[in-house]
């Protein structure tokens, strides 16, 4: 199979996964306890209004009609109306989504940059004190749930030292800039970003570090490393250009999984730091029975993970010339 056929097959797989995912969502949100319509109904309605609302939402239709309608709405980005905000869900979620991406994206990039470098060095200096210490530190970081790391950082840097703000995304009263840079580049924003992003970075650091170390150990046993050393190339070249470059391949696959973890983690980190992102919005929505909003948030998180898996597979093909397209 050629590259093109592989990509085509992978796209097909992507579509199937998406379909399975939103079917799962449909089933989940129709499984709500009690009257399946009650969750869509706001309190204080007369029976007539209620009937009308049900008809509006198409809930009097047979299940398969509802399913088709639901699919159509999701595909067109129509997530319905939020119960609490009384605005279209899409308008609320887009802003929150961006905030989450900025926060978790920063955390992941930091975690992977540091993790890959650290792991490579740990593998290279096998059996050194640096390696042993590094393993203990990463294992401890990995053992800590996001909220716990967040609380520790919060207690130390916000409450005790007072260096960073403890919650939110910008100081209240601060001007909301128009453009992306004004919005996400201001010093005030970065000060708010620091602690939550650091929390994520610490928690997600362990996976790339440990994986990089263990694949490094594998790669370092390969004959070609010995040849590269025999070629007289500087140690740095052998380490980064050859050993690390080969070890990085499995990391690419894991990155997709890490994005999934980060999407989940955003729920916790945003709650701890009161970050106005999608994760916190989702918790609020579930707590307030605002199901359209909760569902939209869940849908977007899942989509990010599925698309990341897809990108990871394609990147892998690009990075490893040996890949056989099954």
């Amino acid at each position, binding site marked *: 199979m050629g590259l093109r056929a592989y990509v085509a097959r992978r796209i097909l*797989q992507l579509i*199937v*996964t998406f379909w*399975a*995912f939103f079917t*799962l969502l449909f089933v*989940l*949100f129709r*499984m*709500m*306890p009690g009257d399946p319509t009650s969750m869509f109904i706001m309190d204080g309605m007369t029976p007539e209004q209620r009937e009308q609302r049900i008809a509006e939402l198409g809930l009097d239709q047979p299940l398969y009609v509802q399913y088709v309608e639901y699919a159509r709405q999701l595909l067109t980005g129509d997530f319905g109306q939020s119960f609490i905000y009384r605005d279209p869900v899409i308008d609320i979620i887009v802003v929150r989504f961006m905030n989450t991406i900025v926060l978790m994206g920063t955390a992941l990039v930091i975690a992977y940059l540091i993790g890959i470098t650290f792991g490579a060095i740990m593998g290279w200096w*096998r*059996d050194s004190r640096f390696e042993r210490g590094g*393993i*203990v530190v990463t*294992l*401890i970081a*990995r*053992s*800590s*749930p*996001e*909220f*716990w790391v967040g*609380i*520790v950082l*919060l*207690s130390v840097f916000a*409450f005790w030292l007072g260096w960073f703000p403890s919650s939110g995304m910008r100081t209240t009263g601060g001007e909301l800039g128009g453009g992306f840079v004004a919005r996400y580049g201001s010093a005030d924003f970065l000060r708010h970003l620091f602690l939550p992003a650091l929390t994520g970075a610490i928690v997600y650091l362990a996976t790339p570090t440990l994986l990089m170390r*263990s694949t490094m*150990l*594998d790669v370092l*046993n390969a004959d070609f490393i010995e040849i590269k050393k025999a070629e007289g190339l500087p140690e740095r070249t052998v380490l980064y250009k050859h050993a690390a470059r080969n070890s990085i391949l499995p990391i690419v696959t894991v990155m*997709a*999984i890490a994005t*999934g*973890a980060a*999407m*989940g*983690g955003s*729920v*916790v980190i945003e*709650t701890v730091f009161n970050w106005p992102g999608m*994760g916190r919005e*989702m*918790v609020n929505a*579930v*707590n307030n029975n605002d199901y359209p909003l*909760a569902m939209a*948030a*869940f849908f977007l*998180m*899942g989509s990010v*993970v*599925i698309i990341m*898996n897809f990108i990871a597979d394609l990147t892998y093909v690009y990075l490893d010339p040996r890949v056989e397209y099954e």
Partner: protein
Amino acid sequence: MSTERTSPIDSATGAVGDGLDYVRTKLEVFEGDRLGQIGLAILVTFLLIGIFARPYTIEFLDLTIPGLTPHDPGERAVGGRLESPSADHPLGTTDMGRDVLSQLIAGTRVTLIVGSLAAFMAVFIGTNVGLVSAYFGGWVDDVLMRITDIVYGVPFLPFAIVLVAILGSSLVNIIVAIVLILWRSTARVIRSQVLSHKQRPYVESAQAIGASHTRIMYRHILPNVLPLTFLYAAFAVGWAVIAEASLSFLGFGDPNMLSWGEMIYNVYTANAIREAWWWVFPPGIAIMLFVMSVFFIGRTLEEVVNPELRHQK
């Protein structure tokens, strides 16, 4: 060949001896591995605390074994509101005047239950899926692996939140939510391991003598991938405990079973995070220590499974 006859008692003690030997050989992997030993020690401590957390009454002996908790963890106003640590309340009190130390000790149980049950079930499902998928191959493999892929597309915590919101906040539902996601990694890893075992001569010879599929899978292949299963079980315990703690921290915990995560949730809802360090830090440290212990043990097992990782020396 010995001509001596062995009595049943001898063979029974022999069996016990063999059993102990077996355990000892299994524990040998921890020898010289400081991290693994620390992990084991912490885990055993938590196990003991969990088992003896609350009083036991053995009725026909009319005996009560006292629990470890100095107070009833749910009882209000055993002390003042938000008291800092004192001799009477070594870890202070909550906003309702409950004893933090007692809550911490009682919370060990929830952690142990969630950790062991969820991990066992997830690894059980994952191992079977991986085994069947790899052994039969073809469309069975395709279907099972596509399902695994799809589960990989589901973000863990949000899914658990939605499921618990639908099914209600109980420990059982939390465990179900965790298991439904957690089996995926075991399935993938076991599958790839079984794929390589499938090619080996011992499987072919078992097939040649006409052993059934079930027999080959469970009697011949499974024992060979079991070390890997244990490794993933150790990790699964860690992830399950983290997931339960996170869910409880977000307020979706079982309201009838106080867990460490829920204690921290209570601190948040009581708005006491700034002042009541004695209430926040103990449960957080406990979670971290517990998960750390299983990850340390997991690392030791990892070196057994993958000797490449082992330290020279």
